[in-house]
């Protein structure tokens, strides 16, 4: 029983990170119908920026995070601006374009910070809480809280602000949205910027849990992408549920199947997707691909 609950606790903490990565994937997808394959690399960049400001510039962790999110949002804007001429013309080229950006970011990270990684000490030094024999890291609680706040803010932005509603409109029908005077390019740019910001948030938060190296975003990107698909690609609550589900699934698979856990995780994932191709929340409002 103790193993069971401890496994859930471990899975949820990484699951929250996967959820943040999935949110970024989903936001860009619902707005543009585009899978941003550079997303995982943006996570790496975010993780490096946050750790650099935290460790080298000695900024407080929270401020380092905010700066990192700001800088990566700008990178998101750059990616969108470069790809904009292709929007609605050649979708495949746009996809390849994001892959290309991923490779460029990967190379830049290695050029700037080197191939070896760095360890980030936990910004919350408090000892883990002990609860009925379960051990819960205080930092995990911080991660969960921040992920929850970020989700709420995102939902409020999309549903309560004019800009957010405009983005929703573009997602549903971009021609009609253009007709009523919504700037589609700007809407896409905002989606990319927020998506990149979320990636930086995930990367920055995961730094103290893991080890920041150029390969960091690769694993998180794949798991986050799977989470987005599992929850229903393009769905905001789906991204959260999918992220937590992948985290916990991964954790249990690791406990029961040991060396074959990765295989089992993705087998289960495949079976779920075969039964429910649109994912748990399968709201396919977006169909521009």
């Amino acid at each position, binding site marked *: 029983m103790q193993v069971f609950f*401890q496994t859930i606790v471990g899975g949820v903490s990484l699951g929250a990170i996967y959820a943040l990565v999935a949110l970024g994937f989903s936001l860009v997808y619902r707005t543009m119908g585009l899978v941003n394959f550079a997303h995982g690399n943006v996570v790496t960049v975010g993780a490096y920026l946050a750790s650099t400001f935290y460790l080298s510039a000695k900024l407080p962790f929270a401020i380092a995070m905010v700066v990192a999110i700001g800088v990566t949002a700008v990178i998101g804007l750059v990616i969108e601006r470069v790809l904009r001429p292709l929007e609605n013309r050649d979708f495949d080229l746009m996809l390849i374009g994001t892959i290309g950006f991923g490779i460029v970011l990967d190379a830049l990270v290695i050029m700037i910070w080197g191939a070896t990684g760095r360890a980030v000490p936990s910004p919350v030094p408090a000892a*883990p809480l002990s609860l009925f024999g379960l051990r819960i890291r205080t930092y995990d609680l911080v991660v969960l809280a921040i992920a929850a706040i970020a989700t709420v803010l995102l939902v409020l932005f999309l549903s309560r602000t004019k800009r957010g509603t405009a983005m929703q409109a573009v997602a549903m029908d971009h021609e009609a949205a253009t007709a009523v005077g919504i700037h589609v390019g700007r809407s896409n740019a905002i989606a990319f910027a927020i998506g990149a910001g979320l990636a930086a948030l995930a990367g920055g938060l995961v730094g103290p849990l893991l080890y920041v*190296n150029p390969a960091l975003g690769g694993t998180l990107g794949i798991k986050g992408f799977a989470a987005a698909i599992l929850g229903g690609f393009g769905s905001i609550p789906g991204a959260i549920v999918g992220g937590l589900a992948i985290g916990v699934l991964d954790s249990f698979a690791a406990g029961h199947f040991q060396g074959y856990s990765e295989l089992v995780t993705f087998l289960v994932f495949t079976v779920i997707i075969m039964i429910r191709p649109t994912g748990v929340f399968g709201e396919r409002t977006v169909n521009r691909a």
Partner: protein
Amino acid sequence: MARNRPLYALAVLALVLAGCSAPGSDKKSSGSTTGPIKIALVDAQSGQLSSLGAWELKGAKLAVSEWNAQGGINGRQIQLDVFDDQGDPTTGTNLARKIQSEGYLAMIGTAESAVTIAMAPTLKTAQIPNITSGQSPGLVAVGSEFLFLNGPTSTTYDETLAKYVVDQQGIKNIAMITNNGSYGKGEHDAFTKALAKRSVTPVADQVVTTDQKDFSAALTAIRQKSPKLIFLGAEEVESGLIVKQARDLGITAPFAGGAPQGTPVFLNTAGAQNVEGTIVSSPYLSNDISPASKKFADAYKAAYGEDAELHGAKAYDGAQIMLTALKNSNVATGKALADAIRATKYQGLLGDFAYDNTGVGIFATSIGKISNGKLVAATS
């Protein structure tokens, strides 16, 4: 990799052109007697194992630049070219063909046993001697006369460790956590064997994957057995994460392992206070063990601005052996060079190298303990 692309295209073009010319007219592509001596260094410069590749490059480069500063070999400079295998066996086999076609005399690397094993058949056919930093017993099983190790195999590491832990310390309540990569698997098998020889069965035997990030399930299972010691068979970063999460879960037992557990990456990832008391089996415990290692560590620090560690030292030894063999054999190639390496007796940083027929040149490690954030020789 990307910046090598035009070069690669050129190489392909050259190959096509060579294929067009008359047979026997392209002799000068390899084994030339003028110009720089070309040695390839193949290692992960990107990806999860890139820290290994970076250390290895630094160690080998240091040895080469020392030789070049003294005028090279027979008045020829040594040219060390770096190839990135990304820690991937498929990329490795492609690189093996590439260094063959570009006329490299010898190869240094890789630091990953799986990649080296994948490259070995091609290098054997091409008769290119290779000194690897891998330590898996699988390297010996390949049975290539062109493959040499620059350190002991896992069997030596783990036999020494089991001897210290079980025979000397009398610890029998041991749990194991290893990954299913080639290094982790080698460690798992070698240590289980060493324990079985002492009729000790591990109380828990957890296997994790190489890119797993959350170890709660495996570690909670281990915690329930309350072992006295936990054997750790995984690379630097993963080992560090395992130890960090184990301490968060309230496991206080010390860890024990091989080379990765003696590195700064392991220590930093886990956090210095978490690795206190870790038992390490290593052929190179610290930079202060001998005058030679002090000299090496000073040169390393001067060149790269960081402290030297085992992997850099291993690669340095390997490169020194390669260059000594090249000098002794008057820049021989192929089988003659392999024989020259086998005949080289070298007093290195890791100890005295004397190669046997299996390509292993050194058969001893020492036991160290992490104390106050530093790896020091264990007082048994």
